[in-house]
């Protein structure tokens, strides 16, 4: 059997007195959407930060397609095919939605046309298509500052997808969005991921979303994976109902 897409081995890190990752060993297989749930401060975001090289673990390893990427800075991990979307969208606030994507494409293509105007690069069509995929084609020429939080979240994800990653890590893709919009955003998102054939890991607080859209769920608690299973198994598990769902409700 080939190596898992992403694998972590015995990740350890603490911030002050808090253990944010306590011997985390996890395998992520290609082609499935894994949801990470758990109470605040359980180390979910820290896990994404370690996997993308933003934070270095005290000990332990991160392997992508079997290769050790632990010491690499985020940009080198990104170039291997791990993209990231953020809880607070990280966009170029003085650029339009389309330009944000074009810049992402330019970063991916590595300056093949150094002096061509960004608005005339050959990737324009592809990026417009991506914007359509996330239902934002109508705001392509608006500065991202002017857009709604939901649109910014989708564009943040589209910017990550523009890199053509194999793995996309998302930190609460539906947070900060009106609850009536959450399902709509996830519909769009899951469709876009399937079309681009990207494996995803997403941190999520909304159990309804997790139940509807995850193929698999990992429950975080006190810096480690407490349980892992299918959404039905997990959401009906008494510990989860007590520790996680109870808290959310």
């Amino acid at each position, binding site marked *: 059997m080939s190596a898992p897409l992403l694998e972590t081995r015995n990740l350890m890190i603490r911030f002050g007195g808090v253990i944010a990752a306590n011997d985390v060993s996890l395998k992520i297989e290609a082609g499935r959407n894994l949801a990470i749930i758990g109470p605040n401060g359980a180390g979910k975001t820290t896990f994404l930060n370690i996997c*993308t090289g933003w934070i270095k673990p005290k000990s332990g390893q991160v392997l992508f397609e079997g290769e050790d990427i632990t010491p690499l*800075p*985020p*940009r*080198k991990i*990104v*170039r291997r095919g791990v*993209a*990231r979307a*953020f809880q607070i969208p*990280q*966009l*170029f*606030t*003085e*650029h*339009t939605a389309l*330009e944000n994507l*074009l*810049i*992402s494409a*330019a*970063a*991916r*293509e590595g*300056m093949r*046309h*150094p*002096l*061509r*105007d*960004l*608005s005339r*690069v050959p990737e324009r069509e592809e990026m417009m298509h991506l914007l359509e995929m996330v239902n934002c084609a109508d705001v392509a*020429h*608006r*500065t991202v*500052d*002017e857009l709604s939080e939901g649109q910014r979240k989708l564009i943040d994800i589209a*910017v*990550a997808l523009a*890199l053509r990653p194999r793995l996309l890590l998302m930190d609460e893709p539906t947070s900060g969005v009106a609850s009536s919009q959450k399902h709509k955003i996830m519909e769009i998102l899951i469709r876009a991921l399937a079309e681009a054939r990207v494996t995803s890991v997403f941190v999520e607080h909304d159990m309804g979303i997790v139940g509807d859209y995850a193929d698999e769920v990992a429950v975080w608690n006190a810096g480690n994976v407490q349980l892992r299973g299918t959404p039905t198994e997990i959401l009906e598990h008494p510990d989860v109902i007590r520790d996680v769902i109870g808290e959310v409700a």
Partner: protein
Amino acid sequence: MSIHSDAGAMSRSPAEKETRMTAGTWLAIAGLVLLAAVPIFAPSLQLLVNLALAKGLAVLGVTVLLRAGQVSFGHALYFAVAAYAGAFLLAAWPGADLLVVLLAGALGAAVSGLLVGLFVVRYRGIFFGMLNLAFSMIFWSILEKFYHVTGGADGIRLPRPSVLGMEMGRHDFELVLFWLTLALVGGLGWFTLRWLASPVGQLFRTVKTNETRLEYLGVSPRRALLSGYLLSAVLCGVGGAIMGVAQGVVTPEYAWWIRSGEMVFIAVLGGAGSVPGAFIGALIYEFVRVFASAFAGDVWQMLLGGFLLVIILFAPGGVVGLFERVTRRGAAKGEEAA
């Protein structure tokens, strides 16, 4: 102040942008033609305009950095490095060609820009601005202290270079230098505009808004910043080399912090981040300075500082911003009338 926000221009439809751009191009060409006629119709202003344009090139360098949200209080360093490079070349090889002198200046600026740049691109904001200032002060001290090499406070005289192998009289040489400067203003201005709109330039500009995302696009923010820093150093260098040749002497004053401050001042005056604004600002600045020095020479910096405060607090778009605001208001009125 949003140091020049493109927000307005960007939200317009591409077609509109296109027409504006061509209109801008025609305006720029008209401006250059007008300036090219200065030696014919107003020869007394020729040297002044030449110096203003040389300074404008240096201001353009500072302007480029403003587009990444960074301000350098030490870019006179590259102005001086290039001017001294030209002076040393002419001292070692009297009658060297003008183009070679300018090239040597640009090269000197590029090399020093790379060395200092590799260090300063690790910093942003306050540190970036002040470390640049520190480097320019270091260079200024070197120029002052090592007088057996640099001529100390008296500086070095630059003999007149040749042009394409020809020895020229003063009048002819000044004409050639003027038109060459104008050509460089047009060429480098065009190049800078293209560069800022290009993928590399756009990546450079994102240093201003989101370095985290830049890193997560697989791009090193430091390298992105360095690319623009090099361009800015070379632009300052070309300006400095022209200034040295035009004035016939270079002194440590070229690297003095007031020069750097002047460049920042003009960049903000012209419209922070605007390419044509750099040259318009430099022309306005030099004219006002020459005519004001008669009665305001003692308080010149005070006026600059006061004016800078007024611009920052009340007209953050600078001259170009004011112009755009007025024309846009005019256009809106026109639409209403129609």
